[in-house]
């Protein structure tokens, strides 16, 4: 039982970060109907940003998100305004090629700048843990989960309670009707891509104390983000939140009870089962 609780809690903790990645992808898809295949690479940029701030300026990775979040937001807004915006309404395959291409540019630029060596960001608490009723919780994972929960709560508040947040949801539900209400949908798209990138970058920052950092790590997370959002229902923020936690738990529990080599198999079987019985995803039609 203790082992199960242990793996369940680890799963929830990492699932929080997955949720952040999924929410970013789903906001972008919701507002623009563009699947961002550079999502994992944007996360990778966030990791390197955190790594650089730590190595060169000695800023703690969990503190540096106050720098990473606005920078990643501006990076995403720039990508939308300069590249993605031109593809609005274009064929899906063209949009996919564009985002894949942007992702490749990002990973290769990082390779030029940092080489493809694996980097480790090691803080003095990287391998420490907290004991709680016999269950040990990794300190960096626990901190990152708390930050994730706070960011997610703020995001929900923003989307449900503010005019701009509601306008983003309105644009996602009916782009044309949003225009007819005086909403500048181009601006909403820039905002959405900025937010999506900031979320991916933050996720990258939060996992940088526990993961290896290398330029090609992006594709793993793009795939993961895709699974999470489809599982939850494309465009649904609640769905992405739940999807992220489910994937986190599935990985962690199967790593303990089967083997860590099989955890991806378990995740994809689960994914296929959900799609088999709920093709629109868990939250295919929900308010957010």
């Amino acid at each position, binding site marked *: 039982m203790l082992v199960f609780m242990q793996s369940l809690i680890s799963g929830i903790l990492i699932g929080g970060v997955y949720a952040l990645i999924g929410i970013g992808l789903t906001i972008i898809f919701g507002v623009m109907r563009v699947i961002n295949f550079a999502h994992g690479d944007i996360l990778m940029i966030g990791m390197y940003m955190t790594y650089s701030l730590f190595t060169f300026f000695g800023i703690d990775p969990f503190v540096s998100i106050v720098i990473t979040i606005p920078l990643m937001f501006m990076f995403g807004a720039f990508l939308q305004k300069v590249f993605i915006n031109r593809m609005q309404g274009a064929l899906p395959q063209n949009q996919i090629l564009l985002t894949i291409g942007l992702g490749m540019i990002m990973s290769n630029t990082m390779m030029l700048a940092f080489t493809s060596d694996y980097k480790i960001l090691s803080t003095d608490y990287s391998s420490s843990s907290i004991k709680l009723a016999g269950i040990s919780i990794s300190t960096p994972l626990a901190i990152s989960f708390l930050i994730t929960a706070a960011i997610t709560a703020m995001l929900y508040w923003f989307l449900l309670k503010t005019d701009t947040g509601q306008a983003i949801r309105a644009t996602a539900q*009916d782009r044309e*009707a949003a225009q*007819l209400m005086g*909403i500048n949908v181009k601006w909403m798209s820039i905002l959405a891509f900025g937010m999506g990138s900031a979320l991916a970058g933050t996720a990258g920052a939060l996992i940088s104390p526990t993961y290896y950092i290398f330029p090609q790590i992006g594709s793993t997370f793009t795939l993961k983000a895709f699974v999470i959002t489809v599982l939850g229902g494309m465009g649904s923020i609640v769905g992405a939140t739940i999807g992220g936690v489910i994937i986190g738990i599935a990985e962690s529990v199967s790593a303990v009870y089967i083997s860590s080599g099989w955890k991806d198999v378990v995740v994809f079987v689960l994914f296929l089962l959900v799609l088999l019985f709920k093709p629109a995803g868990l939250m295919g039609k929900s308010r957010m």
Partner: protein
Amino acid sequence: MLKVDKLNFSYGDMQVIWDLDLVVNAGEIVTVVGANGAGKSTTLRNISRLVKWQSGSISFNDADLAKFEPHEVVEMGIVQVPEGRKIFPEMTVIENLRMGSFIKSARPKRDENIDRVFTMFPRLKEREKQLGGTMSGGEQQMLAIARGLMTNPKLILLDEPSLGLAPLMVKFIFDIIQEINRQGVTVLLVEQNVYQSLRIAHRAYVLETGRVVMTGVGEELLNNDHVKKAFLGM
């Protein structure tokens, strides 16, 4: 107030509007009637700048609309209640209304306008917390009109507001349109329900395959032989 001058518009190679002239004066109810595919909705889509015309011009209070984006047109005081209502399905009634007052000029009057539309449509007040997508067609139409009024428009463009509604609801909607007009909003109404719209309109345009074939006072057109034969089956 609104002046459409020699408008030509095509979807790709297919021209749907030919040299269209149309004028709406402040305070009027003007209706554009015609069969399916006559170019009525396309005219409204051009006014709202959702599509871009090839030649001709549309001006609103002497400002050339060609220079503006759809959201700016709303800020100028033109709102469209689109065909098929297009309310936000996963938002509640009140959230839909709040989106109507998204533009800066409408925000200070938000509470006042919510009271105003709730007086006009008491049904919406009862359904305040219901999701837009789960409401009946008539209720959705009320919400769409109410949401449009939330922008504080000078001119409201109504695209087929009676489409698919029960006869009693159709009568209610046409009464509401007259009420809106009495409150000082100019109305441009596009309809297939020729009888009802000619009855309430000050002036009317008859559109056939993208051309204005007839124009005049609403009541007079009702007695016109061509209109009777083509649209009223008499």
